[in-house]
């Protein structure tokens, strides 16, 4: 058992898969010689060589297009898009080409590829380098969408994503890169489409993703200590496929559902979960479903503003306290 940072777990996951399978290749901007702008890919070029680890020009369409062409002809590429906000400059490749091709060709073309990207708030980089865009990806049929919250899940879900036969968008949270966690030695392969109950409680169920998971856990501790409210926290981990089974089970036990979302309010992933719970668990609910999200704004840069735009521990605690009473 070793303690790894979330950042190191990225390189560990990629290395595990590249060592196992010759067809896994890796491309992106500054990922090779420089080891990634977030130092998430250190050592991979040295270990696997320039044939399989390729630094690219600043050409997001070419990066994603090349990954697609490689995936349909026998490789299993991992492509990095430096910041998830940049999806907007290659969205055609992701949303029109990669997502639709298997369907349009009636299964003739398979695209086993992974697009990794640094998502989310916390670096004071301003609106064009900080947004949580997992809900963009979730809206597109044909994309699997994963967003881990711990080093262990990074390694295991990344391995699962690489081995998956379908395109997977892998959202790393840049605010979590320096966090640490235990990661057992040896091969780790997780399963896509599985949520995790990370805290078991009795009164309310909080459903969260990525950086909102540790915040929800902190909020749960405070609710227990200050209000005697016992909260379950579910780490969704995978938006597509979505583990509705686990989510429904935990909602049915407590009768109360809160979603904690970093994406801006409208059409955030929590809205989909809220609608599913309303349709399928309505008679198990003891009160309204409540969504806690970033307001419908681009993210501001200054630390005080950024930290308070996304859901805070205080806001989670107060919202649950107000509604759960």
């Amino acid at each position, binding site marked *: 058992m070793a303690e790894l940072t979330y950042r190191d777990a990225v390189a560990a996951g990629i290395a595990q898969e590249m060592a196992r399978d010759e*067809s896994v*290749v890796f491309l992106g901007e500054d990922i090779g010689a420089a080891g990634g702008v977030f130092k998430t890919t250190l050592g991979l070029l040295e270990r696997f060589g320039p*044939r*399989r680890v*390729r630094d*690219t*020009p600043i*050409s997001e*369409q*070419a*990066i*994603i*297009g*090349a*990954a*697609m*062409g*490689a*995936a*349909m*002809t*026998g*490789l299993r*590429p991992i492509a990095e898009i430096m910041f998830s906000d940049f999806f907007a400059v290659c969205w*055609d*490749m992701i949303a*029109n*080409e990669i997502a639709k*091709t*298997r*369907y*349009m*060709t*009636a*299964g*003739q*073309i*398979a695209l*086993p590829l992974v697009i990794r990207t640094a998502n989310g708030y916390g670096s004071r980089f301003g609106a064009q380098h900080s947004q949580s865009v997992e809900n963009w990806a979730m809206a597109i*049929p*044909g994309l699997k969408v994963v967003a881990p919250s711990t080093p262990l899940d990074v390694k295991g879900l990344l391995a699962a994503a690489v081995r998956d*036969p*379908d395109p997977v968008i892998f959202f790393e949270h840049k605010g979590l890169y320096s966090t640490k966690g235990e990661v057992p030695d040896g091969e780790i392969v997780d399963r896509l*489409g599985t949520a995790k109950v990370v805290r078991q409680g009795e009164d309310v169920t909080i459903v969260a993703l990525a950086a909102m998971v540790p915040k929800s856990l902190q909020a749960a501790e405070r609710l227990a200590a200050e209000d005697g409210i016992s909260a379950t926290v579910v780490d969704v981990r995978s938006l*597509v*496929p*979505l*583990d*509705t*089974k686990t989510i429904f089970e935990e909602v049915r036990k407590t009768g109360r559902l809160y979603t904690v979302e970093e994406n801006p309010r409208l059409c955030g992933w929590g809205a989909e979960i809220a609608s*599913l719970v309303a349709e399928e668990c309505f008679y198990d609910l003891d009160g309204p479903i409540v969504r806690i999200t970033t307001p419908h704004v681009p993210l501001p840069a200054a630390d005080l503003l950024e930290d308070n735009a996304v859901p805070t521990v205080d806001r989670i605690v107060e919202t649950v306290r107000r509604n759960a009473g």
Partner: protein
Amino acid sequence: MDRATRLALYRSLVEIRVLEKRAYDLFLQNLVKGTSHLSLGQEAVAAGFAVAMRKDDYTFCTYRGHAHTLARGAPMVGVLGELMGRKCGLMGGKGGSMHLTSVEHGAMGSYAIVGAHLPVAAGAAWSAQVRGTDQVSVCFFGDGTTNIGAFHEALNLAAVWKLPVIFVCENNQYMEYTPIREVTAVANPAADRACAYGLEKILIDGNDADVVHRTARECIGKARDGGGPSLVEALTYRTSGHSRADPGKYRPVGELDDWLKKDPVVLYRVRLVGMGIEENALRDIERAVERAVDEATEAAKACPPSGVEVIEKDVWADGGSSWRN
């Protein structure tokens, strides 16, 4: 060039010509819905390249892709069936006219977002390079495509990585309705850009099947030998409208007639006769092709339409479209 190659070229030209005319007739009979983009007048480009390619090479083309798909050997009934939404269509009606794909023939898809497939073709070439095969990737597109970002990203990446890919611009003088010269900073939209990527300027008569074929052989040979990419601009003209709905009113009087004098199919037939190839041999080809297209038409008409059970199939590799458990 030997006799067999010449006859293969002629047969391919005639197949495309007769099939495209049939596709148009089927529109008029309302058996083909939606839109469709014919290569009438441009046959020599698809034929000239396809005859020079190896079975395991890759073709990428646009929504104007009946010709390129057929030329690689895709069955006529699959092409016509797809246009008509039948079960026997190449993709069982899932893709339609603009997305013809036949992976088993190396036809790796027809792409309807202008420029999108250039990076994808580069990716397939990268895959061949990484896997150490000597396959090449050939990518067809229009003059209008030279002004979109993906063109430039793909050319640069292919040049920097020395990829075995041939980019073939079919300059048919028009985008949809606007003459390309009115919106482009250089006279030859592709060839004049080659120098920006350290590539040779290659500007050819795209209506001469021999010239296209010779160019194809040279570029493909160079790519196979590790000599990197080429960018070819083939001058041609589409003698029908941009798509089904277009009567082509924007063309100056006389322009169409001038180009019809350079009809690639007629031109090639005259040349072959002049070289001493017997009328009979050519007439046999023409009759065989007419018969094949008739038979394919009847077979496609007799084939039932794709059933609604396919709507939710083939989003994922497991054959389904489920996004939850």
